[in-house]
């Protein structure tokens, strides 16, 4: 229930905690889904209840994986706790086009 994979429409959703306590588990599923998917990815974070540094790293890693394939990873509907962290760390919701090209 925590990690919904809606591969259709290129959209993934992570639910529940994205913290150090579940980092390994989420990493495995998230990275596998991201890799399995060709094309741009939208990561739905609307149901993430807790988000810490480990969670942030997961998102950044996922973005890197997608970008390595020349696509982009956008974060959509971040929940309040996610938005707060992204805001604090100046992490953009959408892939910077210049970076995606690189």
């Amino acid at each position, binding site marked *: 229930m925590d990690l919904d994979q809606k591969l259709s429409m290129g959209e993934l959703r992570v639910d529940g905690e994205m913290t*150090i306590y579940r*980092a*390994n588990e*989420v*990493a495995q599923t998230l*990275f596998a889904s991201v890799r399995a998917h060709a094309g741009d990815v939208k990561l739905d974070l609307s149901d993430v*209840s*807790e988000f*810490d*540094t*480990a969670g*942030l*790293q*997961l998102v*950044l*890693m996922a973005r*890197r*994986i997608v970008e390595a394939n020349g696509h982009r990873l956008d974060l959509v509907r971040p*929940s*309040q*706790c996610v938005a*707060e*962290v992204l*805001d*604090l*760390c*100046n*992490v953009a919701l959408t892939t910077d086009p210049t970076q995606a090209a690189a």
Partner: protein
Amino acid sequence: MTDSALPTFIAESRELLREMEAALLECEQGETGAEAVNSIFRAAHTIKGSSGLFGLDGIVAFTHVVESVLDRVRANTLQMDRTLAAILLECRDHIEHLVNAVADGKSDDIQLATKGEGLLQRLTARAGGVGSAMTHTIATTPVAPAAGREHWQINVQFHTEVLRNGMDPLSFIRYLGTLGDIVALKSLTERLPAVEEFDAEACYLGFEIELASSESQERIEAAFEFVREDCTLQVRPQAPAAQEVAAEKREVDAKESKASKSSDSRSLRVDGDKLDKLIDLIGELVTAGATTTITARKAGLSELNESTLRLARLVEEVRDQALKLRMVQIGPTFSRFQRIVRDVAREIGKEIRLEIGGAETELDKTLIESITDPLTHLVRNAIDHGIETAEVRRARGKNVEGVVRLDAYHDSGSVVIEVADDGGGLKRERIVAKAIERGLIADGSSLTDSEAFALIFEPGFSTAEQVTNLSGRGVGMDVVKRNVNALRGTVELDSKEGEGTTVRIRLPLTLAIIDGFLVGVGNSSFVIPLELVEECVELGDEHRSPDGDQRYINLRGAVLPFVRLREMFSLRSSASRRESIVVIRCAGQRIGIVVDDLLGEMQAVIKPLSRLFSRIRGIGGSTILGTGQLALILDVTSLLDLCLNTRQAHTAPRRALMD
């Protein structure tokens, strides 16, 4: 982590919990400072971390929630107030119960777990959801505009283990936001490895932050205090290149901060028994040293004499240092009373504040342990019976909030601990009346205030009946006195009706070794604690009446009562041709002790007397002299008591007969 480390974990946790309690009580009184919040956070955090190492999941889970709430308080997204502090205090108690359960070896107590859940629910309800309610307060934190603010360039790389160590780097960034305005922030992600090497529990992030803040560099660096060892931190003022060199020096890398941290808390846990053994050995050393000094003096070799003197001085220093090892500050003991005062006052519906003074006063650890019970008794007494109810206080025009004050200070070789209240005070007439009724004093005897108040320490005053009659004072006061006396201390009491009462406990600095003044009577030797000795004078011939009738001399115009040790202890030897008086001062009174010989200063290692002699008054212990001879250590307080009482009870009748 092996189980052998468990006792250390428990001891440390208890210590942290005590700190946490003190800080929480501070917060509850509405004095929420960053220091207090930090200290609460540190305690919760450390306990969580260490319990994780021992696999104590129950404690980790509970403390995690508490820590999260505290983290938000630290980041200013949650306001610390009385209610929150009160709930946190209960959480603290729960953690203590959990730790105690571990100590007792029954870590999975269902009842405890249920209680914990209930507490957490209340906490979350109060704090409005854990973790999820991170509002944007940081961005909008009102910070005083630019005046005097500097721009700081902060570069911080968190080490890989930081997450596993239970830290969330983000919380430090948030905290930084409370110190000023984060003007710019860049997440540094260069250290993120390839996917195959990515470890989800490792930290790869760093931050480059521009902070506008009026705080000092130290304060900004201190924001990362909890991760000093887990990060590489660089804080430098954003300034022209000229300052760059100086800034470079200020660079704080992990190694340096590690060193500074260890100097902060450079303490060592030592088994108490080892310390006692050391003190014992030093005691023997002192005795052996004294023997050597005497032998050397007899041998008459000046070189030997010189070296023994040097040795003696060193031994003395070693002794002092060793005794200092046992000295601990009384502050933590005092702080524990915050809780007692809070709880008891709440229970009986009075508003009472505890003030603490002289928390840094040091005294022997054993003393602190033994003094806690009597102190508790006195504090409870002050709350229960000393401080009036709110209505009475209002009627008397006093502040409704009563004050109990604990104070400690050093005073001529002893430690004084005071328990004071601003309550109703003692009613002198009623005490005297009761004492007469009880046959403790004769009717019509004139007593000074302190003598009258001292009566409540008499055993006769501790029955239940008196509790009501004397508005409660005197309950178990005899026990307090007995306990204090057993520590070679004294208790005295000051009181003004309507204004309050102060109980003063006077204790020796240490229990093991004293600086003594050696005197001789006949063939016996006695030691008088040196700090009590004021002067020595020769006893003039005119005072040497053979029947020992006269018991005072005129010392430079003042009356000085004296006792003859020869009589006190019925020594069967005739008085020598020359006698001396050692003038001692104790508890504000002066008295002379008549002896044959003055033998000089010495260090006396106190050996307790066997139980057989425990009832003998006037003797506090014994010591072995360098010659191997035994000397008795005078317990001046009880001696004073004894001879002052004897004077009243016996001398007067005797004189009446002679007249």
